[in-house]
């Protein structure tokens, strides 16, 4: 597990999750160091994910692990900066929909076969055919399939966590408002 924060704050006995929980962190609870390091680590993480992705066919790793790595890289920003600031800094809105774009991409790859008269899920190039190289990268449809999985997992990972972060944020807003309003009223409305 990626260390969530570098400031060595101990986990509290019951609710000391402040450094662990994305989005639930008000700014200022993470140290400057944490934020700087997470900021610095973002690009290397994404690069690592890309490497895992495109080389997945020849080395360990595939679209799935690449997706989780990239998602964790983005989630690190959530941890360090809090959800709202992270979303201001990075183009994170709509990342959840990326999952369905990825699913679509894998479907396209899968149904390419029947369209050109081959079996469902036939990859291109066929066995025995020459592979086109772009640098050291091999151009094969299986990589496109993996890219679809990558997008899907990226959308899934960031989507689920940031959903939880939003709910936490909403609950915290509510609990602040509760001082002024009737508590039951505050919860009743959005549970439909």
């Amino acid at each position, binding site marked *: 597990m990626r260390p969530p924060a570098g400031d060595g704050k101990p986990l509290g006995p019951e609710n000391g999750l402040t450094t662990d929980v994305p989005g639930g962190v008000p700014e200022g609870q993470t140290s400057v160091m944490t934020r700087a390091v997470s900021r610095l680590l973002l690009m290397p993480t994404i690069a690592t994910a890309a490497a895992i992705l495109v080389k997945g066919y*020849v*080395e*360990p790793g595939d679209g*799935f692990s690449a997706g989780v790595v990239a998602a964790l890289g983005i989630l690190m920003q959530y941890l360090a900066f809090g959800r709202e600031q992270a979303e201001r800094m990075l183009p994170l809105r709509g990342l959840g929909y990326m999952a369905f774009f990825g699913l679509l991409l894998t479907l396209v790859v899968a149904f390419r076969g029947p369209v050109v008269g081959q079996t469902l899920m036939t990859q291109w190039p066929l066995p025995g055919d020459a592979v086109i190289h772009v640098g050291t990268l091999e151009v094969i449809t299986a990589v496109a399939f993996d890219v679809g999985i990558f997008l899907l997992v990226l959308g*899934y990972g960031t989507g*689920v966590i940031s959903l939880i972060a939003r*709910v936490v944020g909403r609950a915290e807003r509510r609990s602040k408002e509760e001082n002024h309003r009737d*508590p*039951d009223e505050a*919860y*009743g409305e959005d*549970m439909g």
Partner: protein
Amino acid sequence: MTFIISLAVSIVFGAGAYLVLQRNLIRVVIGVILISNAANLFIVAAGIMRGRPPIYPLPEGQVVSDPLVQAMALTAIVIGSSVAALLLALSYRLYTSHSTIDIEDISRAEAEDAEALDRGEPIRRRRRGGGA
């Protein structure tokens, strides 16, 4: 080694079974995660061969691990984890509607609601924070 692996599988599985029997929903979910971990370990261990990673160039004269079980286990791990995420979201949802994550409390409340519906009465609304 066969015996040790299957012992490990069965202990992890047994721990998962124990947690699944708990009243607390979070513990139940954790039990499910453990059980699926045990199953994945079992799948990987069930490979025909165990040895070097199945990546070309294959090592000369050495045994290579069975790639098929690995692919299957990968699929199972991913599905298992997403099911756990869904279960957690469901638990949270149950908490918002019943103010508790204790299965006994929830099922008692469900039974009361069913009886109320049978009698044609409206369902009692519960709110977060109150006891069930």
